[in-house]
């Protein structure tokens, strides 16, 4: 528990507490819905960052974990009457195992080949689910409102889901942080720098890559379960939405890939920006255009993202933030 003594540990704790308490104070449902989306973005971006920022592997189809997790959870609840927590956890474990299976195949590819294969995995899974009878095919699965009963009715259930998502967000940040400061994380960073050199120096690259791919699937799958339970409805285009996958990459790059703080900061700012764009009459149709323009500017002129700029301005922060 060396990490507990580092200030960054307590910064994460403060962020979690703020997320949990801010909407509770005054029962602010509108704020809660905004923050709920931010937690989903943070969960997706932090986990993607372990692939993208640490190991240097672009995963365009990270959303497949979120969607599959949602499907497992919704299906277990509607068809077998499982309680929420058991269904989401089972979904997380199942999706992690599936990711390990996919990973064994596509992680033999590198760079652009891998990136293309991740799109292929997402599209293939979406096409499969669209034709898969037990999961409702293209119409998806609806949850009966009665399933909210055990959580104390819909109004109370929404709060419970929010707190659970904040918890998963906290776990994502701690996971990012723990991995980054571990031997495993150093191995991943070495793979990101130069995979052949890392392999020669004794990093077990195939095992590490498979592990991080599977690990980065677990918490997004759980978040997917909670998210789609909240909506009480899941169908393929929502579950395997490549646009959300895309936004996750924009978020990680915006905040600063390879850092723990970056994706969280990027997710919060992106959520605020998105909220502003959606309510603005001029820009509501141009959300993608602006996300794309933002990404282009970052890639061309500030590849380190916001954290890169912050570190350049205040180098001392490197000692506190990760």
């Amino acid at each position, binding site marked *: 528990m060396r990490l507990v003594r580092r200030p960054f540990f307590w910064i994460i704790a403060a962020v979690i507490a703020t997320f949990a308490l801010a909407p509770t104070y005054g029962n602010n449902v509108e704020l809660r819905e905004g923050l709920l989306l931010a937690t989903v973005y943070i969960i997706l971006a932090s986990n993607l960052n372990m692939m*993208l920022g640490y190991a240097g592997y*672009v995963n365009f189809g990270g959303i497949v974990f979120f969607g599959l997790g949602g499907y497992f959870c919704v299906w277990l609840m509607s068809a077998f009457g499982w309680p929420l927590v058991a269904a989401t956890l089972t979904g997380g474990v199942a999706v992690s195992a599936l990711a390990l299976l996919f990973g064994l195949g596509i992680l033999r590819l590198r760079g652009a080949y891998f*990136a293309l294969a991740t799109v292929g995995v997402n599209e293939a899974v979406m096409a499969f689910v669209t034709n898969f009878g037990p999961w409702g095919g293209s119409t998806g699965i609806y949850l009966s409102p009665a399933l909210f009963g055990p959580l104390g009715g819909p109004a109370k259930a929404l709060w419970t889901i929010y707190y659970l998502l904040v918890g998963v967000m906290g776990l994502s940040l701690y996971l990012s942080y723990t991995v980054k400061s571990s031997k495993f994380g150093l191995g991943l960073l070495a793979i990101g720098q130069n995979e052949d050199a890392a392999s020669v120096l004794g990093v077990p690259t195939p095992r590490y890559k498979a592990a991080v791919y599977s690990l980065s699937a677990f918490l997004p799958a759980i978040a997917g379960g909670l998210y789609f339970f909240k909506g009480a409805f899941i169908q393929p285009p929502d579950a395997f939405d490549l646009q959300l996958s895309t936004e996750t990459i924009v978020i990680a790059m915006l905040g600063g890939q390879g850092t723990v703080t970056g994706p969280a900061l990027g997710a919060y700012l992106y959520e605020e920006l998105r909220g502003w764009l959606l309510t603005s009459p001029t820009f509501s*149709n141009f959300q993608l255009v602006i996300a794309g323009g*933002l*990404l282009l500017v970052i890639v061309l002129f500030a590849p380190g993202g916001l954290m890169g700029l912050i570190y350049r301005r205040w180098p001392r922060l490197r000692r506190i933030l990760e």
Partner: protein
Amino acid sequence: MIGLLASLLDGILVGAVYGLAAMGITLIWGVMDVINLTHGAMIVAGMFGVYLLSGSLGIPVYATLPIVLVGGFVVGIGLYWLAVHRVVGQPPLMSLLSTFSVNLVLIGLGTAAWGTALFNVQVSLPGLSLGRYTFPGTHLMAAALTGVIGGVLYLFLYRTRTGKAVRAVSGNREAAELVGIPTRRVLALSFGLGVALACVSGMLIATLFPFTVLSGDAYQLKSFVVTVLGGLGNPAGALAAGIALGLLEGLATPFMPVSWTLVIEFVVFVVVLVAFPGGVLGLRRARSH
């Protein structure tokens, strides 16, 4: 039996157009190690190019081909200087993300302008009858034009000085620079050519099937499947693999719902990527990044 044969022959015709689209990706990849993720958006640009030119200005459908070709070339060179030039030679992450972000901007603008409604281009060409089955004239015309464009591309790459420069840069950029080839201009030219091919294939696809602003994604993925089958950086392989994919679709159509063909294509895609990273028909060895 005749139905299956006809379906296969039709698959070859449509597959040739997929091959044309994939040539655009593979040319750019071979020359500058950049995977052009604006490809789908450029295919859609070609589709809307022919739709607007023939619909609003009344230009005959096939006469728009040179306009689309030149327009695509100019747009491609512009895109190169805007988004690609700074990231050539950097890790693949950077070029993937920069072309991808341009794709987002273009698709976003397209969606804002046209929504996601279905469009189609009206062409009346007599078909060719073979027993009870008639091949649509548009399919024959698209395959024929693809053959012509592929031939011209071949002559350009192997018979002209500029084409030889493109191949030289593709082989070894530094060595090409040392013997006095203006590599930056060659890179811009190749990107322009790749985008022009994407636009023309989009124009031809628009004469075959209805399309939306978002159709580009599906054809971009098909192009990737074709490209990895044919070997990245290998235009002739791309054409052959495109025809192979068309055959596969033609073979699958009579036996299963259309929605499953996509699953099969992606399974083929992933399996081929994993089993033959250099491409099934590829003569080149795969690069490690």
